[in-house]
């Protein structure tokens, strides 16, 4: 049995992800990195919010915490401050992390809490049936934007950079080799690491927008130079002439690094001064 398979909780199988869903691919990439970095996951805490992506922490044999909708980062902050020696990883979705949990996201980044936040970004609410998310591209069809989305989407990575994250990267379920490398680098950082991972909700978003089958949807992430093809200026339609959705150009790879002490390091210094 491969090392990463040993890190799965057999009792939790079968998992609840739909066929073709990109989340399983992302989880696989995370497991491979964890299996390379750790003998056991005794000192690794995986914290998640609510949604399809958040359910995956339960499948991993670590200290796992499935919290409330949007608030995983607040629990994770408490864990990290109480036990700075633990590796804390937050798994969240785009609705969970950027809509209901948007405020917590900004403040965790600003504080530079020493944890890695992995955002499974499929541009929709999967678990509740494919509704509009703050990351849904303009004009996309969802169950709550039946005539096409009229709101611009958040760029999660830019938000993280503006808020003060010290490592920010974007990866894709389409390129797991690159994703593994980015996750590995994110874990190396002492402060707040943010990894925006583009993945696909095959059950809802992909179907509603006729993006083809799972593999087609995956390929739509990698059309040109591993960037998403886009042409917003060209017009308000979701689909370009070739049938792919029009999206903003989303660069991938490491997007930002900064060197700042983590919150735990600052608190330790302040505590020494107080004593």
């Amino acid at each position, binding site marked *: 049995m491969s090392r990463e398979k040993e890190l799965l*909780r057999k*009792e*939790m199988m079968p998992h609840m992800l739909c066929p073709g869903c990109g989340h399983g691919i992302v989880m696989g990439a995370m497991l491979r990195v964890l299996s390379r970095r750790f003998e*056991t*996951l*005794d*000192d690794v*805490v995986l*914290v998640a919010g609510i949604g399809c992506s958040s359910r995956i*922490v*339960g499948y991993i*044999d*670590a*200290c*796992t*915490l*499935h*919290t*409330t909708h949007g*608030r995983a980062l*607040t*629990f*994770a*902050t*408490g*864990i*990290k*401050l*109480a*036990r700075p*020696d*633990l590796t804390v990883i937050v798994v969240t979705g785009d609705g969970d992390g950027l809509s209901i949990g948007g*405020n*917590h996201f*900004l*403040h965790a980044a600003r504080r530079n809490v020493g944890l890695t936040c992995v955002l499974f970004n499929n541009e929709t609410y999967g678990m509740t049936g494919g509704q509009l998310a703050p990351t849904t591209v303009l004009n996309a069809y969802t169950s709550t934007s039946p005539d096409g989305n009229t709101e611009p989407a958040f760029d999660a990575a830019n938000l993280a950079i503006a808020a003060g994250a010290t490592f920010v990267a974007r990866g894709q379920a389409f390129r797991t080799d690159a994703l593994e490398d980015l996750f590995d680098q994110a874990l190396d950082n002492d402060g707040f690491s943010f990894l925006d991972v583009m993945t696909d909700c095959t059950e809802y978003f992909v179907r509603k927008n006729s993006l083809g089958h799972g593999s087609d949807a995956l390929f739509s992430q990698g059309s040109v130079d591993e960037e998403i093809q886009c042409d917003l200026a060209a017009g308000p339609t979701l689909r370009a002439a070739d049938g792919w959705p029009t999206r903003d150009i989303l660069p991938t790879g490491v997007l930002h690094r900064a060197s700042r002490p983590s919150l735990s390091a600052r*608190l330790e210094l*302040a*505590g020494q001064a*107080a*004593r």
Partner: protein
Amino acid sequence: MAERHLIQGNEACAQGAIAAGCRFFGGYPISPSSEIAEYMARELPKRGGVFIQMEDEMASLGSVLGASLAGMKAMTATSGPGFTLMQEHLGYASLAEIPCVVADVMRLGPSTGLPTSPSQGDVMQAQWGSHGDRSAVALAPGTVKEVYDLTIGAFDVAERLRTPVTLLFDETTGHTREGVSLVEPDPGSLWRRPMPHPAPGHLLEAFVPNEEGVAQVPDFGRGYRFHVTGLMHDERGYPTSDGSVAAALLERLERKLVPVEDWFPPEEHCLDDAGVAIIAYGIMGRVVKQVVDRLRAEGTRAGMFRPRVLWPFPARTLKRAINRARLVVVVEMNAGQWAIPVEQAMEGRVQTVRVNSLGGEPIGVDELCEQVAKAAFAEAGVA
């Protein structure tokens, strides 16, 4: 005899928490509770503890629950509007059995209300504010010294039963300065959460209850790998959609709280032969005590029952204590929130009367004497 100090209720709460071993405070500023956070911000770092001001009250309690799961005794403090925002995580802490203490220094609501006026308006919220059938623990100290003692007691209950505990006191108690001598508890006497016995590693028994019906969840980072969720779960801590497992879990969570009323006996004043039992808690107990003395001097056999446990509702204790009463008067600084379960417990066998104050001011001794005398007269007339 311990030294006497002049301190306010909010400081007593913070000092009690530190004496109880609390080393994590996640908070958000709100009147009239902010002094608790300020005290913790000054004192916790000196003791190797952590203070953090979070971005809102949901985050405050979230950070507290995280710290608690990582092994620290942890608390937050707030007032009505913030307490409302915390209901989501109070429900989570109940279901996932995470020890924590929430001090709610009550002010007049609803909404922003009168932020600096006392009230007892969060009594029902403490029990029923979160969705679902949650069993809650709420303690109601009535003096500055009791705020200290019951804060320590709140941590003991939270740890022993792995449950959130709410401390309910009002703005007046929070801000009144009293000369008190506080006795620090012997650290060995403090309760610590039950720890599991099985060997470390992949743990499939994190939520198997002990003999008190309490899950034995290890702290994170102690060699055990296990799952915690706000979904209905089995004794492994794994999600389940089996209705019978969910129902059994909710019943256990309710059952484990039953002994709490016995751990904090009520204050009883002249109840032995009282035909008129006046029920009051928190700050109103101080007024009612004087009312009882005056009514007695005037020839009415009155007595006071002041519960220190509001939830779970102490029906056994109450019925035992006031079994001679022919008239029960419930005095509250709300519209009768605790009178509702009192009336239910009396099952219509005893006449009950409510005396309420809704304007953000405690009811005075004169007014209360008059109201109780009137009710007693009416009751005698009926009898």
